[in-house]
């Protein structure tokens, strides 16, 4: 087990390191970054001065080495807009993202798994067909549009909830619902198809052959078997949830990481963008890591090896 953990931590570090390297070169190679950092109409001498203060006149490998040395110390530079620490800005908005993502995750999980299981159990009935139809529809609706519709109906027309922000107590509802529906469709569909797969397995037939009821097989046996692939999907889905969170945050002006990165992108505040990418890819990796650990708890074949 410790070996496995060390291995995964190393892997995570390598991936995050490579991600930063990739973005670094992407930004540097796509042209003189100074232009990106300054308004388009800046005078030439200002550009030159800026280049010098930011060190962009040095050779690329020196810049890279310098950058990595700072990053290892947790220093992504200061925001070009607010002059505060870039990483600090991103981290300060982390709780907001976490709150949104987790609540949406819990909501979608609580709804999706029972529906998926029931759908598989009542395969080809109206319930199943209706459920499958909704998931197909759900996957075709972009979350930002759904968010807009919610705002229009529930905030603009009905005045039930605020249109955005994180200040009011009810402001959480709409973004959470939007984000939850976004992952709900995938989760229901996946749970259903995995349950159907498991129900076809020989060991399920064995249990039927000794007189265990279908419902019991479903809730006790099949669900535990289906849990393995579902956990993998949930990990992936938490990732996708982060993706959805970026968009949802922007639609609802929710002050999370996504919003921060988006604003930074708009204002060409690249230190903040880099810090955001660092944090997001770190979260991604941690989620995958957690999923692997969970996997080994559920699957005895992995645990004992």
């Amino acid at each position, binding site marked *: 087990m410790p070996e496995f953990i060390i291995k995964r931590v190393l892997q995570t570090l390598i991936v995050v390191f490579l991600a930063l390297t990739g973005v670094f070169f992407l930004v540097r190679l796509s042209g003189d970054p100074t232009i990106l950092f300054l308004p388009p109409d800046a005078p030439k001498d200002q550009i030159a001065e800026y280049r010098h203060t930011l060190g962009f006149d040095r050779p690329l490998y020196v810049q890279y080495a310098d950058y990595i040395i700072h990053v290892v110390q947790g220093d992504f530079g200061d925001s070009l807009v607010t002059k505060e620490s870039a990483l600090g800005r991103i981290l300060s908005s982390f709780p907001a993202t976490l709150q949104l993502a987790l609540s949406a995750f819990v909501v979608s999980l609580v709804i999706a798994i029972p529906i998926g299981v029931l759908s598989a159990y009542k*395969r*080809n009935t109206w319930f199943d067909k209706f459920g499958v139809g909704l998931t197909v529809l759900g996957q075709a609706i972009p979350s930002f549009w759904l968010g807009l519709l919610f705002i229009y109906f529930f905030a603009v027309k009905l005045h039930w909830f605020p249109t955005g922000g994180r200040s009011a107590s009810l402001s959480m509802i709409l973004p959470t619902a939007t984000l939850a529906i976004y992952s709900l469709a995938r989760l229901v569909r996946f749970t259903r198809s995995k349950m159907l797969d498991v129900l076809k*397995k*020989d*060991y*399920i*037939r*064995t*249990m*039927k*052959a*000794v*007189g*265990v*009821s*279908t419902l019991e097989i479903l809730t006790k*046996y099949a669900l*535990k*078997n289906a849990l*393995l692939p579902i956990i993998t999907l949930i990990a992936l889905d938490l990732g996708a949830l982060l993706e959805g969170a970026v968009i949802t945050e922007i639609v609802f002006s929710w002050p999370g990481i996504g919003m921060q990165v988006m604003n930074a992108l708009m204002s060409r505040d690249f230190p903040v963008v880099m810090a955001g990418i660092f944090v997001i890819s770190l979260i991604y990796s941690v989620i995958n890591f957690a999923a692997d650990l969970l996997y080994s708890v*559920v*699957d*005895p*074949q992995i645990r*004992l090896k």
Partner: protein
Amino acid sequence: MKNILDVSNLEVKFQTRRGGVQPLRGVSFRVHEGETLGIVGESGCGKSVTLLSVMGLLPNDMAEISKGKVLFEDQEITHLKEHERRKLRGSKMSMIFQEPMTSLNPVFTIGDQLSQPLRKHTKLGKKEMKKRIIDMLKLVGISRTEEIIHQYPHQLSGGMRQRVMICLAIICEPQLLIADEPTTALDVTIQAQILDLLKKIKQKNNMSIIFITHDLGVVAELCDRVIVMYTGQIVEEADVRTFFNSPKHPYSKGLLASMPKEDERKQKLYAIKGNVPGLNELPLGCSFSNRCPMAFDRCKMSPPVVKVDGQICRCWLYAEQKVGEQHGE
């Protein structure tokens, strides 16, 4: 002798994506108390479908028993409600499958899986249950019982898993055990062990066994009576000695003749020509007629079921005798 199972004129239909097929076309047979009945046939002959319909384990979204009756201990169970069927399965009749590697659930311990039928069909307490499980594991020849019940299937070898499967099937001491090719996936030395075990258990518990296989050698080892199936019908039924010494149906004859013999090494084997036809490309009349060396005109019509010397055979070759017999009666 008392019949434990009486199947009469059973027909099953499958609905698939590309239309319907009929894997069983009128199957009738009986299983007596305490006997071992072998059902022999090649892929697609319907031997597994027959027994799955007896157990009520056909996939109900695509399969349907369209005709016929199944009596178990004189009670009709053909269209039994699922919850009533569950009372039979695992307690009075149970089944072992071909693949020991996939037939046990990988994420539950052996002990947990073995306790299922006991929980369903008995009122034993926890301690009694454990004692019963351990006793039964010993009966199927597993020695490290205390360890095994806490282990997961993947920690056991194929032969051990098949022993666990047998234990699972007989733990409530059923009257009828259905074994669907339980040794096909095993090596010969392990097969010998398992066959040995089945003989021993049968004697001890006096149950009836239906043994599905494609291996005539296994039939010779274990069975009292044999049924040969071809394309969803029974073509011959006989007691085991009669079958091996004087088979009647040309298909049975062909199967027996194509087994390699000790004293004919290196010589050309007798081979039935052609292939087993698919269920929707059966020849008219006798479905074996296109491969039969004895086929003649009448084989274009459905052959009668005739009784010859105590064995039952579905073939035109013996039709005269049937007529004679009827006159005699």
